């Protein structure tokens, strides 16, 4: 396993793409969060209903997840695109080990970049929001990781990005083509919010929110009205984890069964 890990690390380290994409994850996430926080306006008498300042500050994840998906899909799809995958399997014939090594290295990198990005988002929210009416007097203390739910939301967002990376690796292994894989991942992430907008039956909405990878997974960011959520913060992240594990398992089984 260690040589496989080392090989995957070398592959990611020696091409410029992954480095730029990791920077892109941080830049995109922090940029969108800053934009959302900066455009918020609360009247002097306070926002109604109460704003979830933490979730709002972390909304950049909506964009950052797309970059994470590209990075993770390319880690697998890129090898199929160039034929490198055959060299890889010649060097490490145990295919499950290759998949595990890829998943571990990419997830590790995403965890690092995600942590930086989420810290940037929290900092941006902490600096910007008080100027837009979310003041202590209105009952909005500055964002702080010492606050339990905020810490959970921040840590959960980092894990969310890591799970998106795992989901993307699984799907890319399944379809063996970068473009198709990225299309599938982004459809999974972005289609449910749109569908939720047009389906009006509360039961259907609830079930959709419970099974959608992005909607359920991002429940971990909620700090206001947690009891009203269709799915709890950690169980929501669990749903996304189930999606990721399912995709990885399916990808792994097909990886062993098919020719490279």
């Amino acid at each position, binding site marked *: 396993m260690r040589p496989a890990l080392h090989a995957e690390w070398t592959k990611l380290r020696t091409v410029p793409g992954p480095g730029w994409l990791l920077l892109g994850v941080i830049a995109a996430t922090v940029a969108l969060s800053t934009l959302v926080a900066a455009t*918020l306006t609360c009247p002097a008498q306070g926002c109604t209903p109460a704003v*979830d300042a933490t979730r709002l500050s972390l909304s950049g994840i909506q964009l950052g997840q797309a970059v994470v998906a590209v990075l993770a899909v390319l880690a697998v*799809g890129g090898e199929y695109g160039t034929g490198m995958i055959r060299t890889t399997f010649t060097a490490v014939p145990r295919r499950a080990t290759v998949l595990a090594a890829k998943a571990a290295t990419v997830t590790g990198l995403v965890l690092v970049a995600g942590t930086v990005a989420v810290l940037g988002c929290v900092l941006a929210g902490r600096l910007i929001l008080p100027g837009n009416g979310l003041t202590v007097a209105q009952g909005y203390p500055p964002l702080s990781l010492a606050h339990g739910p905020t810490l959970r939301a921040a840590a959960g967002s980092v894990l969310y990005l890591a799970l998106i990376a795992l989901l993307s690796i699984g799907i890319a292994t399944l379809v063996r083509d970068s473009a198709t894989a990225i299309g599938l991942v982004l459809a999974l992430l972005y289609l449910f919010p749109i569908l939720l907008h047009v389906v009006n039956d509360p039961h259907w909405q609830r079930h959709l929110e419970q099974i959608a990878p992005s909607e359920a997974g991002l429940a971990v960011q909620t700090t206001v009205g947690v009891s009203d959520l269709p799915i709890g913060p950690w169980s929501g992240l669990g749903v996304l984890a189930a999606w990721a594990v399912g995709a990885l398992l399916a990808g792994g089984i097909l990886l062993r069964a098919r020719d490279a």
Partner: protein
Amino acid sequence: MTATMTPYRSGVEAGRAGFRQVLRAEWTKFRTVRGWVIGTAVALLVMVLLGLVTGLGSHSSYNTGPGTPDIVGHPPVPTGPDGEAVTDGFYFVHRSLAGDGSITARVTSLTGSRMPQGQDPTAPSTPEPAEVQPWAKAGLIIKENTAQGSAYAAIMVTGAHGVRMQHNYTGDTAGPAGTVSMDSPRWLRLTRTGDTVTGYASTDGTTWTTVGTVRLAGLPATVPAGLFATSPRQENVTQHLGGGGQVVGSAALATARFDTVDLGGGWSGGGWSGDAIGTGDDEPALRSASGFQQSGDSLTVTGAGDIAPDPAGSGDTIEQTLAGAFATLTVMVVIGVLFITGEYRRGMIRTSLAASPRRGHVLAAKAVVIGAVTFVVSLVAVAVTIPLTEHFLRVNGNFIYPITGLTQVRVVAGMAALLAVAAVFALAVGTILRRSAGAVATVIVLIVLPYILATAGVLPAGPSQWLLRISPAAGFAIQQSIPAYPQVGRVFTPAFGFYPLAPWAGFAVLCSWTALALAAAAYLLRRRDA
């Protein structure tokens, strides 16, 4: 003596391959790749499938009072003379007018009140004083009959929008501005001559200005006409940041004082009779609060409701059946990108460019093929999805806003055109980046993410509208079937399905992005080595 060798030259003129041949080559490439043909079929099916999910997952029911059983369906929605959904509720103090005639009255006050908030509409309650609604209306009206949705023309004072002449729900002309009070009353006059109704306004009763003249085709010879008052609900709209919006409010009433009422022409004798149009038995408190009092030549009229187009909210719009278009978009974007990046990956691009050295032609041919295929497939998908989804929505009791045939054609053809242009955009971005994953992600993030950020309430209304003006997602304005009416006091933001740009203007924004990307792609394709 030296022999000179003449190198072989083909007798065929260079660049013989015209655009038709290139087009044929690209079409052959497209239809012979099995994955792309299957993908195109999938693109069609997902739209229909997600339409089914929308239809089956939307239910509507109502009841006629507490304790009564829920009925699958929706309360009846009146439609106006042009077929659009309208609200038609007001207190009507009328006589019958045979043939031509006129009515003149002075309005000396327009005040508001509202029913206590959050109360059961059937519980006995009395209105409490409240500020008059900006679009509360009172004035003179000539109406085809007393049924909801019938043709009318009216001149009125409003809570905050001055004197207006309105007709047939959508027509609206502004008259003198300012609010009405005892110190600054307004004289109003409405005259009927044949099919033509003219509204006049005056601030002193002697100098009159014509506010508007409208023609009500087919107006019967004898019509009810007289005075009216109405007020839309007092509503607070809150847009939840992070998803959805909420409308809370209570019924409001408007009370207007008229005096020096003067009638000319064929008016019936006897007194005035009053009718609460559109306030049903399910709102007895509101009904008993409405009415009129007469003393001498002055009348006080109190009414609730609105006479206006119904700008969506209580039902479904045709575009809500098309959520699956985003899935179709995703599939066609992937195929559009692969149509060019696939050539780079396999080195096929060198063969393509050797066969037809005019690189611009190759790109143009690819754009035509992918655009045409996407247009046809999307047209079929949209044409199947809309009636199918509408059928299931109706079965589940949902109200679907009626639209004209022309609007329907615009939505169907517009969505197909939007998806086709998006596929060409994907082709252009794929040519620029030459990397499939990056290109697919770029296009989807540019088109879909702004839409989600703007409509799902992640961003406040102002930035949402800017996003839908400048990003490629502006193109989705093409599917908006119900226009925003400025004369209705509603919130017309993206979260409620209203786009900041007109349908074709929004589509033009997407086309501009595509044209720019195509130009950059053509330039780079010619300048770079393949």
